[in-house]
């Protein structure tokens, strides 16, 4: 436990230096509220396994050293280079948010294509968007995000439309010229009967410290369907806190697969609100951690009405001194009859120094429900290992094969085809580190 807390005075000064634009009133309101709560600590039940002290210390350092220049538009050729390379590997309509600011050139290029039903705008560019931030305002990390927000990306997909390619949202942060803290905000509005594939890709570069705080809000109207893949491939020294909030309309469906590969301290929260009947949500995730990585995944599905279905499966592979946390909550509110909810979390521990804390939770206030969860922590199946070795595979090789198979169950759930090959490559590379490292 650490006594770290944010320097409110410096924070106020930094907020004050941001441009006096449309966002200013929201920033000020969020700042006041954030000042009351501060960052969450391990004394909060939902944060008991996540110690944000390093991110708070870094934020203070940044406020002290760099916040005065925070109002300047970040310019990074390295970011551009990264984006170009990714775009050549993964075919999608890419939009880049660098250090919290939507890159206007790519946005302009996308807009120029005049894709039917698709609209993408930057809030900082003076576009008025509906104030959708209110529901997020009650959590400290979203308040912090709003207070320091420079820009936000707002994308809407019109009724009945389906973009020809996935939308690629590259969130890239550059900390090569000094420690940095960035706030990213994405709002995605999918109208009635529209469909979309989305790739949310997180990366960071630079040898200084970086702390990214990302908030994504996703609204699916009636009959809308979204396939969503989130890839987190940050520098192994950087921090990230991410929140994805999804609201599902009647008969809407969302399939989500998340891959956490990088980062030093990573915390992801996914909140799904099922407020209308017959919605369905699938949440899948894979986290791979070694070294001293700390990766947390928290999900919360609110079944407010039924019938509706939620399915959740997260898998983790941990090596070295890594620590991962998984917390899956399903809350079935009174009257949500016909709810069918299942959560599962499976973990492979490859080292005695690694730690997994897993906490599946069910809170049920209705009786006509089918709810279950399961969680396991264990090792590779010895019988399977022996079988492969008896067929002539080296121990490491056999372990690789089985570990890859363990991970492949989640890759198979990733429903955005354009990015699957890339994800497989990234995972294979990480698994070589993890399994190789564990047997040494």
């Amino acid at each position: 436990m650490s006594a770290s807390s944010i320097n409110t005075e410096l924070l106020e000064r930094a907020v004050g230096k941001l441009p006096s634009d449309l966002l200013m009133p929201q920033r000020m309101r969020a700042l006041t509220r954030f000042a009351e709560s501060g960052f969450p600590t391990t004394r909060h039940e939902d944060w008991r396994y996540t110690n944000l002290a390093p991110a708070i210390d870094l934020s203070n350092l940044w406020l002290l050293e760099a916040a005065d220049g925070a109002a300047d538009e970040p310019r990074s050729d390295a970011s551009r280079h990264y984006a170009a390379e990714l775009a050549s590997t993964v075919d999608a309509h890419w939009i880049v948010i660098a250090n919290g600011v939507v890159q206007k050139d790519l946005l302009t290029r996308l807009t120029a294509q005049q894709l039917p039903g698709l609209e993408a705008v930057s809030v900082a560019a003076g576009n008025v968007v509906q104030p959708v931030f209110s529901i997020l305002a009650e959590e400290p990390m979203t308040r912090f995000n709003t207070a320091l927000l420079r820009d936000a990306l707002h994308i809407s997909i019109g009724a009945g439309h389906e973009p020809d390619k996935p939308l690629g949202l590259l969130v890239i942060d550059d900390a090569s010229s000094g420690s940095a803290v960035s706030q990213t905000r994405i709002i995605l509005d999918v109208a009635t009967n529209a469909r979309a594939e989305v790739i949310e890709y997180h990366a960071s570069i630079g040898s200084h410290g970086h702390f990214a705080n990302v908030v994504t809000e996703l609204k699916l109207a009636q009959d809308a369907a979204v396939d969503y893949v989130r890839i987190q491939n940050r520098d192994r020294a950087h921090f990230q806190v991410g929140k994805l909030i999804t609201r599902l309309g009647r008969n809407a469906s969302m399939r989500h697969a998340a891959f956490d590969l990088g980062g030093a301290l990573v915390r992801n929260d996914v909140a799904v609100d099922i407020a209308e009947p017959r919605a369905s949500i699938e949440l899948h995730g894979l986290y791979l951690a070694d070294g001293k990585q700390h990766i947390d995944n928290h999900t919360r599905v609110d079944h407010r009405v039924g019938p509706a279905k939620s399915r959740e499966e997260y898998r983790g592979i941990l090596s070295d001194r890594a620590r991962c946390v998984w917390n899956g909550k399903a809350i079935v509110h009174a009257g949500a009859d016909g709810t069918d909810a299942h959560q599962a979390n499976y973990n492979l521990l490859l080292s005695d120094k690694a730690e997994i804390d897993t906490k599946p939770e069910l809170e049920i206030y209705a009786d006509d429900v089918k709810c279950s969860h399961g969680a396991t922590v264990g090792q590779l199946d010895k019988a399977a290992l022996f079988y492969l070795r008896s067929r002539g595979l080296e121990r490491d090789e056999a372990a690789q094969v089985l570990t890859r198979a363990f991970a492949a169950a989640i890759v198979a759930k990733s429903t955005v085809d354009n990015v699957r090959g890339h994800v497989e490559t990234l995972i294979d590379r990480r698994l070589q580190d993890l399994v190789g490292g564990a047997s040494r």
Partner: protein
Amino acid sequence: MSTTTDDIETLVNRRYKHGFVTDIASDSLPPGLDEDVIRAISLRKKEPAFMLEWRLKAYRHWLTMTEPEWAHVHYPRINYRDISYYSAPKSDDDRPKSLDEVDPKLLETYDKLGIPLHERARLAGVAVDAVFDSVSVATTFKEKLSEAGVIFCSFSDAVLNHPELVRKYLGTVVPYRDNFFATLNSAVFSDGSFVYVPKGVRCPMELSTYFRINAANTGQFERTLIVADEGSHVSYLEGCTAPMRDENQLHAAVVELVALEGAQIKYSTVQNWYPGDENGKGGIYNFVTKRGDCRGDNSKISWTQVETGSAITWKYPSCILRGENSVGEFYSVAVANNMQQADTGTKMIHIGRNSRSTIVSKGISAGRAQNAYRGLVRVMPQAANARNHTQCDSLLIGKDCGAHTFPYMEVRNATAKVEHEATTSKISADQLFYCRQRGISEEDAVNMIVNGFCKQVFRELPMEFAVEAQNLLNVSLEGAVG
């Protein structure tokens, strides 16, 4: 096949049957708590100085603590100054030496409770220690047990007659600073049971204690300590009842178990404190700390509980699996009906190599009740090959109740295997119809299905308790369906 349909029918027509007040002279301290009260308790019990010191340390620490709020239960603030911390059915000076000396009215009470102290003890071979309000009244079968070298007596007697054992083990599993309620208990506990089973001895009979809160505005703070020396075995049963009263009464007990090398302790509880009425008026607040320490290699501690009573249950019988190859078990049925709230579960702390634990929890919610399972499985880095399996099922009866599952798994060893499974369901209409088509009434069918749901746990109870548990379950769920 231990309960016939007839039994169930008579049982479902019965309300909380233990709700009567026994009118006997009792010696109580006035409500309130300060160091003088603690001194008075210690003085009345003629305790040696070390006990008073320990109590005072606990009290001073308690003053620095705040009541925990993390459990999934809600209740008005308890005013600890309104509670009387000591109530004995008779003055201490002429406490009974044998059953013949026990106030006949008191014996009648136990008969009403269905604890025929004489018959039951003789027929069933159960040694019974009955704790009435705060003081242990009579212990049967003392002689037979002492032949085997087993010490089974009230905690007060143990403090007087075996101070060296009490001093050696008291607070070593649940330290006086442990938690708000355990610390309060350490300061004010008045009596409870004490068991010591010497090396290599298999206790010749089941040991049993009945707890009953009688006097109004009395808190019951009993403390139980069971020590099973190397290679010994003991099975201990605990039953609880309380009269119906409009006010809530506080019960904050502490149970400490110590299992040395190769020892086995089986601890079974049937808890049937007054749960309050349909509107949540009255009932016992049951804030209990129960913990077992598998201190020696190859030791085993098994908790079995059937929790049907109390307005609020806050209870997590736990095992510290310190010894190599040690085994911890937790089998639980928790029923919450009407306005009852239960937050119960267990902790299994794996420290020893090859330590194993099993958790089977069956929660039943009905009426407007809230029932939560909360459990922790922690595998420490040194606990190589640790194994845990948890099965946690909830059954919902009716639309207005809640069933919640909060398991925590913290694993720090790469050879450990931890598995958790949980399900939530309601009694299916198909099952009910099937039974009714065979001529079984709806009420009986529900009881049958609920008992089937709990079978895995009932199987772990000693025979005569299993029957009682089934009956209690049916009574607690009375009116839950239809």
